[in-house]
């Protein structure tokens, strides 16, 4: 993937996008991202937790301890209202950014 800054912002976006579909724990989030991207976006699991804490501090997600289906104790995160607003904003920005990159890469018509 490209430079780390971009990566961080992208990771945040991916996380909150995942959570928009429902609360999940850290492991589940990483797995979801990997599966949905067809294995291309393999999140470094150790980097996931700092991201989660960062998002928590920003107030975009909140976490509470709960139980998985298999009875394991895990910390579940869910999207806050602030996070939902941020998701819309960041998605739009990503779109704009992607199109800009695309425009530059496209050969200009003479």
């Amino acid at each position, binding site marked *: 993937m490209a430079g780390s800054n971009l990566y961080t912002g992208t990771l945040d976006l991916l996380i909150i996008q995942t959570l928009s579909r429902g609360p999940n724990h850290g492991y589940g989030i990483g797995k979801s991202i990997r599966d949905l991207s067809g294995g291309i976006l393999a999140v470094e699991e150790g*980097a996931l937790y700092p991201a989660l804490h960062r998002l928590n501090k920003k107030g975009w997600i909140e976490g509470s301890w*709960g139980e998985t289906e298999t009875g394991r104790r895990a*910390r579940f995160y869910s999207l806050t209202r602030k996070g939902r607003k941020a998701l819309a904003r960041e998605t739009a920005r990503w779109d704009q950014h992607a199109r800009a990159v695309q425009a530059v890469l496209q050969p200009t018509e003479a």
Partner: protein
Amino acid sequence: MKRLFRIWSFEPDPERDLADEIEAHLGLKVEELMSKGASEDEAWQEARRSFGDPERARKESKPHAASRERKHRAGEFLDSLSQDLRYALRTLRRSPGMTLLTIVILALGIGANTAIFSVLKAVFLQPLPFPEPEELTFVWNRNARTGGYGPTTFPDFLDWREQNQSFEAMGAFGGAYLNLTDGEDPVQIRGARVTAGVFDVLEIPPAMGRALLPEEDLTEEQVIVLSHHLWTERYGADPDILEKTVQVDGSAYDVVGVMPEVFYHPTPWGLTDPYLAWIPMPTDQWIHSRNSYSYQVLARLRDGISRARAQEDMNRIGATLEAQYPDTNENERAWVVPLHVLLYGDAAAIVLLVLLATGAVLLVACGNIAGFLMARAATRRTEMAIRASLGAGRARIVRQLLTESIVLAVAGGIAGLLLAAWSMGGLKTLIPPTFPRTEDIRLDAGILLFTFILSLATGVIFGLVPALAASRTRLTESLKEGGRAGRSGKKRLRTQNAFVVAQIALSLCLAHVGLLLVRSYGTLQELDQGFDPEHTLTMGVSLGGDRYDELEEREAFLRVLFARLEAIPGVTAAGVTSKLPLRGGTNGPTVTEEQFAQDPTTEGVLTEVSSVSGDYFASMGIPLLAGRTLTPDDADTIQPGVVINEAAAQRFWPDQDPLGRRFGFEGDNASWLTVVGVVGNVRQTRPGATPRPEVYWDYRVNPRVQMYLTLDAQGDPRELIRPARAAVLSVDPLLPVSNIRTMGEMLATDLSGREFYTLLVGLFSALAVLLAAAGIYGVISYFVAQRTQELGIRLALGAARKGLVLLVLRRALVIVFWGLVVGLAAAWIASRIISGLLFGVGALDPTTLMTGVGLLVFVGLTAALVPGLRGTRLSPVAALRAE
């Protein structure tokens, strides 16, 4: 399950949290890998590998976790605080009687302090209403040898102003009575002759026009500046006043300025009689004399110069003047005094005295409440033990109990505020008229803050020890016994005893002080002041201005006036004097003829001097002891005949006949005064002051402008006010009278400060003794309750009831004894501190001490008797069965 997790995560540990999270993550990964067929070991290896470095995760999460923890902790603290509050309220509601009683006692204690503090705030703590008031000073002249101080001379003032390096501005002034003779209603007002510097010192600009100019100093310029009060009251707030003139003593003065409402002219003697107008300092016969000490000086310090430095500066100048003018300025120095202390210090000292008394009462009340709480702690031991066993730390329990105390104290504080507000009206009537700024006394935001802080402090003071004691329970012991006996119970009793000993000590101290003050006041009140306060009326007249320039004019006025005054029915004698008793302060050093002959350089004796006329002595009720009173022939200015008082006779010619002897004022060798009569002593400066030697000469020897008419009434002197005033106006319709009052009123005003603090300190002492009695009652009740079983056994074994009561009383006596021992030491210290206020009774007067001791012993035994009798009245069976 979830709820259980919550309780366990009592203490947030972010490190553990994260570790758990990582652990869970790995666990889930392992699960997945295993479901795909890996073995557990392989799964764990793979999981750890793909996770990466957990250390990094931990490190990057730390700052977020820390702030999360802080928020969590804060939330938890607030949570437990509100829990404490709710629990405290519930507990207090459970024993409404005790709660209510405690709140009442606290209301009395805190309310009293609040009320008195509000007086202190208005009277003393408020700064002076001038810009940078801490720079304002008053400069006295002081004799370094005798310590006597007072106004200075004008030439000295000029030198001070010229040579000093410490003051930004300096002004001199002298009070004057100005007759405003315009309009139909002539009135005499209090005003001042000032140098323009006075306005520079005070730095408040005029509201209209201008203040006086330096060019106008020492001229006969007839310009005048009015005060706001005068402008509104007498001139109807006329907006065109600056174009008008006012008649002062018959002459027209141009109004050049009006001062704003907030302006006032500070002077040590004018708190109740402020200056209403200012005219330029005129030149007169005394302005160039270095012997005429009549000028008061206000000065403003330069920025950054301290009073001490200014004092050094002035000392230097004083030494210079002493060298230059050895005849007049020997030992004379300037004395720089902060204006704030000068004006308000005396009143503040009185209020502080009362505040100390109220503070003591509050402490005694705290002792009582602490005693209650200790006794109650015994009944709550089981509750405390259970809380401790559930994991509440000692600090937590103490905090809980302290919350209860603080809630009680704050409730008491609110009730106290209401009490203070309600009693404010009554308090204000007690406040002496001589106190400054009493109109500013009110319960404002500052007072509310004071009450709140006092309540918190009170809550901690009475709550801390019981809270600490209650939290010290030993689990098994309290759960087993549930009763009051046992080791911790004994310790509790000892602490309670200590509280009561302290209460008794404080009460004795306060009672002793109160008794001393009451005795002083009583002695002063009954004291013979030397004149008759019951039947004497006085009023001031100012024979100044053009119409009374000539001595004959004044004499004519007085002659006609006396005739008319004596014609009034009810008047038995009429006279006039230059100064009144209790208001004295015109004096000079005198030597007798014999002393002068022996040694012309003998130092004179400070002698008061009054110019009198008419039937002065009879009108004032001063008895004639030898010789005769003054006649017109005695008015010879070369060799006047004079009347002296007994003190002078004793001082100058002890045990000899003073009639016919001669003496004179130091430096005035030309005129010897011949004694023609001796009258009784009068206290010249204040009630109870030692009478100074005094000489009375006829008015014509030294005619003064400001005089006081004195009338002796057969009945009530106040009935003479109208006819006397009418008589004055009938002789001169343009001559106003001022300061009409009876000598009785003047005496009462002088004693009003003392009356105030004596009454209040006495009241609070009584309150403290009552509270101490309650304390003894409480602790003895507890003692009896503790020993119920023992007493029961003794009764069962045949002990006489009387013997048991005596046992209880003896216990009480021991406590009272220790209280008295500590109390005597405290009383010793306290009475030394107030010894300056005492009159006619020594600080350690044995009768007073014994009365105080006896009172407390009596009160203590009585208070102990009730629970003692009650406790031993139980049937032995009931006593034995009781816990």
